[in-house]
């Protein structure tokens, strides 16, 4: 094998003008995108692209070239994860999974919408449910359950406080708590900076 060919195969992603982001893309498995021929099947199949400026193939291209601005592009949050692009990609790239990985990197860099952060930090971490029925504000939902002959709370984490603790322990163990704390500090600092201005 010629030296040049070998160099090409070993090259993980195109050289980025930015710092370590390109390597993070590689570590997340985004080098699979090198099989992409930019045919646009993903983009043409995308129900979100029908009504927003989100263009799947453009996002993938930017990830492949190590363009870190893609992490701040709100468009990556317009994918409804319907998996149509994943099914139709002629190069068998797991497109939707790539978008999800890209979002993971964005969150790690602190690029997460306030609504999403609140959902993770306050609701999911605290209750173990993404859509809870406990707490003062949710009385009507418990009453609704009872009106259909069901107990006011389901036999989930809602009836088992020890199970909520267990979930929290697991989330700490995989580093989610630290991640949330770091983002919270970042968000507070940004807010303070804005107020100073």
């Amino acid at each position, binding site marked *: 094998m010629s030296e040049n060919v070998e160099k090409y195969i070993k090259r993980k992603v195109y050289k980025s003008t930015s710092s370590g982001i390109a390597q993070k893309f590689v570590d997340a498995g985004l080098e699979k995108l090198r099989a992409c021929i930019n045919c646009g099947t993903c983009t043409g199949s995308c129900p979100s692209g*029908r009504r927003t400026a989100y263009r799947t193939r453009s996002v993938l291209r930017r990830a492949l070239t190590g363009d870190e601005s893609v992490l701040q592009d709100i468009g990556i949050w317009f994918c409804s994860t319907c998996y*149509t692009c994943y099914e139709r990609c002629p190069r068998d790239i797991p497109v939707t999974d790539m978008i999800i990985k890209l979002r993971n990197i964005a969150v790690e860099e602190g690029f997460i919408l306030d609504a999403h952060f609140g959902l993770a930090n306050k609701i999911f971490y605290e209750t173990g449910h*993404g859509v809870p029925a406990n707490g003062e504000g949710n009385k009507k*939902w418990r009453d609704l359950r009872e009106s259909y002959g069901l107990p006011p709370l389901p036999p989930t984490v809602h009836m088992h406080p020890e199970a909520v603790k267990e979930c929290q322990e*697991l989330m700490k163990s995989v580093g989610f708590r630290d991640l949330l704390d770091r983002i919270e500090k970042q968000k507070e600092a940004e807010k303070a900076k804005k107020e100073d201005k």
Partner: protein
Amino acid sequence: MSESNKWKYGFFLGCVTPNRYPMIEASIRAVFDHLGAEILELEGASCCPAPGVFRAFHIPTWLVIAARNITIAEEMGVDIVTGCNGCYGTLRDAWVELEHDYELKKMINEHLAKVGREFKGSIEPKHVVQVLYQDMGIEYLQGFVKHKFKDLKVAVHYGCHIVKPSDKRPWDGESEDPRFLDEIVEITGAKSIDYKDKFQCCGAGGAVRTAVKEISADFSREKLENMRDAGADIIINCCPFCHLQLDLGQMEANSIYKDMVGEPYKIPVIYITQLLGLSFGIDPSLLGLIKNHDLKGVSPFIPIESFLEKVKAQLT
């Protein structure tokens, strides 16, 4: 019935079903009981966690919590059944991924060991519709039909994660034009109508609804327009989050896209086991179809009385 002994499932409720659309929970319980399937509670189960949000935030968190939920059923030695496409997507994807990646499984089990659990992969996460269609089968279901609807046009909405990604689903790779849900609907005599872009996403998933409600509402507006054009009497679905998006989403589309919508949408949204239960002759109050409260701002947001009125005469 000898067959019924093998039908034993751990009921994975998730979040939207028990906490926002309890009528769906009631109808699944009633129909499974009627069909001779035993439902056991998965005590202490949590959010699956939702694939569009939590998986998109932090994959290790998504995997470890999903694995924990699966271990609850493993300890009981039963397959999981869930009525939610999102929970199905999470539990099934996590199950397949952990089964196919030894290193990943080892890593997740190291975390689970801290709370005294181990993911084995010994049970299968299933969808309510999968159990109805594959474990029980159309012929078995037909034996329970007591009333046949003579005049009912149904817009069937599958949702995405019940069929996709198809390499992690049990439908022989079919993702573009599945028929299983239409077949179940049609044993009740109702007609599953064709409509444009039938397999398009409802717009709720993938963190989109939380991010920008207007975009989600535009997805549903397009679906609702196509359903209305085709003359649908009702919408039938098999996912509480699609259910929410197509029910509450009608109100949102009616207000956000008032000029495009014109005459406001008011198509009743019915879960598959509610329709099946009616056809089996189960008391509608056990199927969560009869409103028995005066609560404000609760589901269903689009009244279903027009549907009940229409089928009343056909249930004889």
